[in-house]
């Protein structure tokens, strides 16, 4: 219902003639669906997640279809990304962490492709919604905590007890450690979300400056836009990388229990 109401002022919902920079983040239902009383409509966000998943599958399958010893260009891109993530896992978690490589690789590729898809004009940036990044982060957090308890049993609780601390200070410090542990999903999700949303808002705002300043003044804004788009592509990659590497670091904490 809301979607149709908003769809009326199609495209640029802002007042005063300038396009509304937040309009790009709006969720639109593509077809409505209600499952067990829950609104499970297929939205533009879901559409881009499906596109990303298809792109990654298509890319890896097509690239490795031949699996030749001397790789084609596409194949070497796939191998490069494999080696990149494999090294990341090996350096940060160790060889026994390679069990979790498929998960980290999937995560990295998914976030990376979602971020990069967002850089194409007229697309929707899924990772600019905190609920999406928070769902990813919460899943990682729960999984890592479960792995910790599964590997070490109750001893994993020692992770929250800092060493060499006077006994009187322990209650306070344990609480602080627990809170510090609980901030992980929040800081992990906020970082990705804030970077993507801030970047895309800036792009829209400066894009509207180009139009608003006209033929004479718009060039300066346009030059800035070009540089800023480059920076945004870098940020899109960097944030996917940071997301994956922090997952590795958390995994390492759970497996080897040291800060």
């Amino acid at each position, binding site marked *: 219902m809301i979607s149709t109401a908003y769809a009326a002022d199609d495209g640029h919902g802002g007042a005063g003639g300038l396009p509304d920079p937040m309009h790009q983040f709006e969720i639109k239902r593509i077809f409505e669906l209600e499952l067990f009383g829950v609104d499970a409509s297929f939205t533009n966000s879901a559409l881009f997640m499906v596109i990303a998943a298809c792109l990654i599958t298509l890319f890896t399958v097509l690239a490795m279809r031949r699996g030749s010893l001397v790789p084609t260009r596409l194949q070497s891109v796939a191998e490069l990304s494999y080696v990149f993530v494999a090294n990341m896992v090996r350096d940060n978690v160790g060889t026994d962490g390679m069990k979790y490589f498929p998960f980290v690789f999937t995560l990295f590729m998914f976030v990376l492709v979602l971020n990069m898809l967002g850089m194409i004009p007229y697309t929707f940036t899924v990772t600019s919604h905190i609920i999406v990044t928070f769902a990813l982060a919460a899943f990682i957090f729960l999984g890592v905590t479960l792995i910790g308890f599964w590997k070490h049993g109750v001893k994993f609780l020692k992770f929250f007890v800092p060493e060499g601390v006077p006994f009187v200070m322990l209650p*306070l410090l344990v*609480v*602080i*450690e627990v*809170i*510090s542990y*609980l*901030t992980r999903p*929040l*800081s992990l999700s*906020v*970082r990705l979300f*804030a*970077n993507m949303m801030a970047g895309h808002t800036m792009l829209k705002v400066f894009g509207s400056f180009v139009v608003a300043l006209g033929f004479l003044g718009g060039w300066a804004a346009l030059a800035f836009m070009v540089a800023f788009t480059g*920076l945004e592509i*870098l*940020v899109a*990659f*960097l944030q996917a*990388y*940071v997301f994956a590497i922090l997952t590795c*670091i958390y995994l390492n904490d759970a497996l080897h229990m040291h*800060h």
Partner: protein
Amino acid sequence: MAGAEKESGRTTGGRDTDDIRQRLDALEGKLDAARVRHAPPPEQPEGRGRAMGQALRLSTELVAGVVVGGFIGWVLDGAFGSKPFLMVAFLLLGAAAGILNVVRTAKRMQAEAPVPKDLKPVDGDDDD
């Protein structure tokens, strides 16, 4: 005639393998150089983007600590009916946890940061 052709083929073949090996070695060297150059591609995004990323990372750590601490206090307050007190206490604890996180993140950044170009302590003092 056929034999001569075969022989010439073999010799060029031998030269080819040598050639290929040499080229492979050269390529390996080039690859190593390229690998060194590109070693941590995301780590070296020059200047402002990198610094901004780090600043954002540290500030989210700090804010997340306070937010999570406050939220826990708020929930506990609701559970025990001790309206503002637990929230105040946990806000402070959350701030402490945030600072702890910032210190840890900063330590990690320092450990993995490349030595700055204008600060090469290894060779002593060669200033350019």
